[in-house]
């Protein structure tokens, strides 16, 4: 197992190197450069454009450019963006990646939670009205064309009802005279979420150890959750930047609804199929013969086993959802990594584009790696002792 992990990690490094080279070649093959947009501008002289090219290193021979860009990537420096000059690529990515990862991590989590519960339920009640309703509505939403669905929801909720904003990350008018920028607030929101989850997890583990009565424990855990949430809310209400945090969250709700309604059916159908497979196993019959209550068989015997394909799918879904971020972020003009990537590609901002591709590729690689390891850890039937995948 350990050896397998090490070999896979070494492979990741090689694959990442080849991947960045291909990405770089793709941009090198593009005709023109970022300075092309100044050609038609009479105020900018050809000498100035030439100077600009020299500054960005665009006049160097290909191998020097390649070495320069590769050195930038692997020293973690990533260079300076052409289009957002003089911001560094690193600062742009660290500003926008957390947003996208947060939004899409939440979306995938909720999708899988809904998918897990619904899939479990409708597999248990298969053939019934609920099964039919959930499957049909889930598949209809699943096959919906994302841009049209997003536009429709914007029209319905943002325009007709006026509950949510039409797009963007924040409402600029509300931020006039704000003490900090949006990223400052957002990073603190993330820190609160992580701290809260950690406190909850620590408390949960402690409660598990000391409270053995199932019912008492359930009440205690619920109380702990409420306390953590209340503490976070109080903290934010007293911080003075609470209203700005609400503004950020308010802008995230509509993209969230759009993607969750489209995506939950994927997890639901996987769970349903996997659950149906499990139900026909012998140990479910044994559990029934022992006289266990149906709910216990469903939740503790069948669903536990059926969770396996879902759990590895979850890790991969995070990587895939970042790919889909391009569409969602464009429609909602929500400046995350997807929109940044699209912008960088269309303006030939090579350092930013290569940097964004590298980060997304690295996330996908790590997701595949975690999925493989998770699969082996969760399913004792799989072993990576000989050969390897």
């Amino acid at each position, binding site marked *: 197992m350990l050896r397998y992990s090490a070999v896979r990690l070494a*492979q990741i490094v*090689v*694959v990442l190197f*080849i*991947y960045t080279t*291909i*990405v770089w070649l*793709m*941009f090198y*093959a*593009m*005709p023109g450069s970022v300075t092309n947009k100044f050609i038609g501008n009479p105020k900018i002289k050809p000498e100035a454009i030439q100077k600009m090219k020299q500054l960005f290193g665009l006049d160097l021979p290909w191998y020097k450019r390649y070495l320069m860009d590769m050195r930038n990537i692997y020293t973690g420096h990533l260079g300076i963006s052409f289009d957002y000059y003089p911001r560094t690529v690193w600062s742009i990515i660290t500003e926008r990646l957390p947003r996208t990862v947060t939004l899409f991590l939440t979306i995938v989590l909720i999708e899988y939670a809904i998918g897990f519960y619904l899939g479990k339920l409708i597999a248990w009640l*298969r053939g019934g009205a609920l099964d039919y309703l959930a499957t049909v509505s889930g*598949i*209809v939403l*699943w*096959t*919906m*064309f*994302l*841009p*049209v669905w997003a*536009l*429709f929801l*914007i*029209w319905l909720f943002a*325009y*007709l009802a006026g509950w949510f904003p*039409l797009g963007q990350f924040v409402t600029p008018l509300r931020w006039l005279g704000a003490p900090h920028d949006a990223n400052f607030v957002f990073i603190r929101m993330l820190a609160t979420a992580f701290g809260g989850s950690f406190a909850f997890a620590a408390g949960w583990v402690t409660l598990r150890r000391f409270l053995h009565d199932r019912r008492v424990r359930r009440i205690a855990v619920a109380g702990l959750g409420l306390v953590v949430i209340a503490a976070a809310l109080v903290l934010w209400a007293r911080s003075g930047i609470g209203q700005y945090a609400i503004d950020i969250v308010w802008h995230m709700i509509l993209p969230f609804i759009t993607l969750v309604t489209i995506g939950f059916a994927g997890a639901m159908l996987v769970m349903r*199929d996997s659950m*149906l*497979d499990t139900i*026909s196993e012998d140990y479910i019959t044994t559990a029934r013969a022992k006289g266990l209550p149906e709910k216990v068989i469903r939740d503790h015997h069948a669903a536990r086993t059926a969770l396996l394909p879902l759990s590895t799918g979850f890790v991969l879904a995070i990587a895939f959802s*970042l*790919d*889909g971020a*391009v*569409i969602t972020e*464009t429609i909602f003009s929500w400046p995350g990594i*997807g929109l940044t*990537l*699209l912008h960088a*590609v*269309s303006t*030939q901002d090579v350092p930013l*584009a290569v940097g964004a*591709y590298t980060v*997304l*590729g690295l996330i*996908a*690689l790590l997701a*595949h790696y975690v999925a493989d390891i998770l699969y082996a850890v969760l399913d004792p039937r799989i072993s990576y002792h000989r050969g390897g*995948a």
Partner: protein
Amino acid sequence: MADSVPRELSKAEIRKARRALFFRSLRQNWRLFTASKIGPIGLSIIIFFVLFGAAHPIYMLAHHNNAIYDPVMGFDYDLPAGTNPHPPTWSHPLGTDALGRDVMSQLMYSTTRDILLGLIAAGAGVLIATLIGSIAAFYGGIVDAFFMRVADIVMLFPLLATLVALSAVVKVSLLMLALLLALLTGFGATAIILKSQALQVKVKPFVEAARISGGSNFHIIWSHIVPNVLPLSFLYMMFSVTGAIFTEAALAFLGFLNVQMSLGMIIQYANNAGYLVGSRLGVYWYLWLPPGVAISLLCAGFYFVGRGLDEVVNPRLRER
């Protein structure tokens, strides 16, 4: 029969027996497919859209005037000036777009092209994936490692952003897009899935028997492994068609597709001209709803057929 000396069968007899077997399995699979309910629904959706697309020349003929109803160049001079986009009327069942072109004509014209795009992309992609999967599974070792690492790298590329970047290097027409998608899916995820299927086929006794009776590597791959991987390939082809149509529409919507007319382009033209913002979305529903529904239904149709085939191909899912 059992104790009579086996007679050498003539070629014609073998062919006849094969044909009978083929039709019997076809009938059997058709029964399984129709039992799934979801498969026939998908098939009827696809047939409807194929007929709908095929009716485009008839629609053009019925109106006698290509100058008005041409999907790309048409313009109706009979409508009062400055009224485009015009809401649906008897002569324009789905209205006209911002440039005065008939939306119904655009929709029929693009449907055929989108279905063809999906089928070409999926067909070529699955062909590549089947060959790679079979070869990698059969030879194993370094060949396997090479193709699987290639698949890893291909899977790393965010699909849409990569196609956007490639659209600057090559002119992305529909055929080009189909080929790019075929390469990206054929060398990527589909190859890995089909390889795992081919691995299961490779250890079957009949492969061993073929090798003992002197079959060459090519013969074993081509007539023993590939035919047994094909059902699963066909299943993934259906899912790839859904993916290809969606990618086309999304790419066109973002404005990176170099074609004059497709389902995604209808929406993109409307979006570009500013008819999909705020209150206009409700007023100009005929600019985005018909192509949007067509894309969704086409994707759904192929997805449903895929789910129906799933029951035929995966015996695990049957007999519940």
